[in-house]
């Protein structure tokens, strides 16, 4: 990002460091950074990497809050560092890797646990019969699109996992983003796989681990409202279970 606007202010960043080859446990390191008034937290991190300490590892890419790479805990709250203005913080800012995730190095967390939960909800269109391209698109009204659109906006930044008290204590829980994504497909008029996903929602990682903390929706940078998705999924999962005694299913 460019760095030409206005008077700089010196801020102290207390950053978590961890190199598994050298450190037994994570520790912190402080850096003094001259910060422009319009900087985001990410600008300061990149300044540290470029000008002060090239050994700091962190993930980032788009810098416009759509790729989901740069999630970290800033002063204890999960944030997208590319979207978080330093103007909202004081002279000292603490930057830690996302809570509730194992730490690979410095601010980089282990994502594969999330990727497994993500895949477990079968996040793709399940249709009884494959439609050929020549048959054209499905008809889907704006109202049908609106039934799931909000839940398709998740950028997989995992801030919701860092905020969720259940994720912190219950390792099996599928978690907000994975459930929201499964729910997104359940509510898509083109999908016919709701029973399969609802079985997953009632399984080991059950949606019923959720106890209405609503922290996920508080921290979501994209207004996906995963708490709504998880709790909607609860109702759908129950109805699906009840009707399974009445309606015979092939799957």
């Amino acid at each position, binding site marked *: 990002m460019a760095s030409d606007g206005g008077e700089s202010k010196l801020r102290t960043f207390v950053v978590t460091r961890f190199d598994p080859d050298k450190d037994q446990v994570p520790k912190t390191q402080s850096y003094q950074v001259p910060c422009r008034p319009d900087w985001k937290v990410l600008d300061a991190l990149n300044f540290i990497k470029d000008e002060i300490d090239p050994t700091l590892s962190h993930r980032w890419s788009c*810098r416009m809050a759509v*790729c989901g790479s740069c999630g970290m805990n800033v002063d204890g709250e999960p944030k997208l560092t590319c979207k978080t203005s330093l103007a909202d913080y004081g002279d000292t800012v603490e930057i830690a890797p996302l809570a509730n995730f194992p730490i690979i190095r410095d601010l980089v967390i282990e994502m594969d646990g999330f990727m497994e939960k993500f895949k477990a909800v079968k996040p793709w269109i399940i249709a009884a019969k494959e439609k050929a391209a020549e048959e054209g698109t499905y008809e889907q009204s704006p109202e049908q699109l609106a039934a799931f659109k909000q839940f398709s906006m998740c950028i997989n930044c995992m801030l919701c996992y860092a905020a969720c008290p259940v994720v912190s204590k219950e390792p099996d829980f599928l978690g907000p983003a994975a459930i929201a994504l499964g729910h997104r497909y359940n509510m898509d008029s083109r999908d016919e796989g709701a029973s399969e996903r609802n079985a997953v929602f009632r399984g080991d990682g059950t949606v019923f681990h959720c106890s209405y903390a609503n922290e996920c929706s508080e921290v979501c940078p994209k207004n996906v409202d995963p708490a709504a998705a998880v709790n909607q999924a609860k109702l759908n999962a129950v109805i699906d279970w009840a009707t399974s005694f009445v309606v015979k299913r092939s799957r």
Partner: protein
Amino acid sequence: MTAPSPGTDVEVLRHDVIVVGGGAAGLRAAIAAVEADSKLTVALVSKVYPMRSHTVSAEGGAAAYVPGSDDSLEKHLYDTIKGSDFLADQDAAEFFVEQATGELTKLEHWGCPWSRKEDGSVATRPFGGMTVPRTWYAADKVGFHMLHTLFQHSMRFDRIVRYDEHFVTKLLVDEGACRGVVSIDVRTGALRVFLGRSVILATGGAGKCFPFTTNGTIKTGDGMALAYRAGVGLKDMEFVQYHPTGLPGTGILITEASRGEGGYVINSEGERFLVTRDYGVGQKAELGPRDMISRAEILEIEAGRGVKGPYGEYVLLDLRHLGEEKIMAKLPFVRELAKTYAGVDPVHEPIPIRPVVHYMMGGVDTDIRGATPVPGLYAAGETACVSMNGANRLGSNSLTECLVFGARAGREAVVYGRGAADGNEPRLVAEAKQEGARLEALRGRKKGGEKIAQIRREMQLSMERGCGVYRNQEAMHQTVAEMAQLRGRVADLALEDESRIFNTELLQALELANMVDVAEAVAIAAAARKESRGAHACRDYPKRNDAEYLHHSMVFFAPGGPRLDKKPVTIGRFQPEERKY
């Protein structure tokens, strides 16, 4: 658990097709490959998790003929070719428009949430340079939705094996054919060699060679540099697309759709200069092609009608007359971006904008099948230059291009693989070990005289001076010289981080070397093209010169410095004519 020691331990992974890059083109190629053959496996090797690929940031839409509309394949073809300033290979463009509808339809079947009309059919919006609205859209986050749809759909296939956060450093070529790639497993720092029958490069463009770009940090031209060093020519590199509406400073993209929905571009006097002054866009005004609008903006700023700001001068994009309801329905992401990154609410204030680097029309030389001249090596998406975009790309064509040519490259790679033999594994592994030793020597190389950030900055500023919206011979030659000098200096980088595990400094050094090679190719091709065509506007030669320059430029790697060559353009049914709108 200790990771294998880099340079000595080499892990070999065998797959039939190796796709490098996990964006729209790479994912589409992988899906096409596993669909084409029920037994083969595909390695999807990406330096980031696929949903982080830069496809995600595309906003406006993807173009394709809508059956039953008053559009036609011929109109789409003509718009594309005229938009390319007649440098596109017309057979490639024709294949593209024929395949476009099917690809976007497939994506819809896979769950892409295209915005809809009341009757349930897919909606379209007007876009720059298109005579008929044919841009399918998903609010104003089309790249995000397309990428996530492709990624999630790809997860159905166990035969697509993902290697996330693996950085490819070298192509393995044996007996003239590409047999695999050498990569660093970013997590462990260990060397992982992928051996297979074919390699498809889909690593995107190289916007980060410039200081102001819509591109994210990962767009460092890795695939282009890999192919270039393996002897494949880079085609039409001088054609760099400046998107007319990027935010000053950050370069963040404000989609063309904001103009498609009726936005105005105005100068400091509030004048809609694309309408009131003659900038060649005629009736199309704000929906003219990107190269012309970018030039118009620069000329307005040079004439003193720009607005001064902390990141240079800019002009304005006015959406106020659209009203809050329309903005929230059609351009909600634009509103969010303007508020977060420009401190402006477009419902009440115009958005500051200026041309920023967005897309590379040029890239790895491929034919219409996505094949490079090296057997077994393919490329698709922004990395490749087929060429279907010629000297200037129309907005919303590139996302469809990723699908069409990604799918083609995937299918062709499978067909090729059936007839190909495996490479000489011991020889390839030995070559990989040499590469491993080179990387080991680079990691934590404290005894150097140069800093990554310093060289990167100098490269970017030089490219801005020499390869901006308007170019001149003197500045271009200066940049060519500066790039050659930087190439030398990159070999003397000082690196601090000795750690093997998730060493992003090492990756930055490798990316910098890639960028310098690509930037040098851009500069040298630009200096050699003594005409103005499409996005290449040379002040010393302001006119298009078909007699001498109706050809593709080619840049080849050579030890003493890049070598230039030409390649003919395939003309089809549209003879080159004056490009007026």
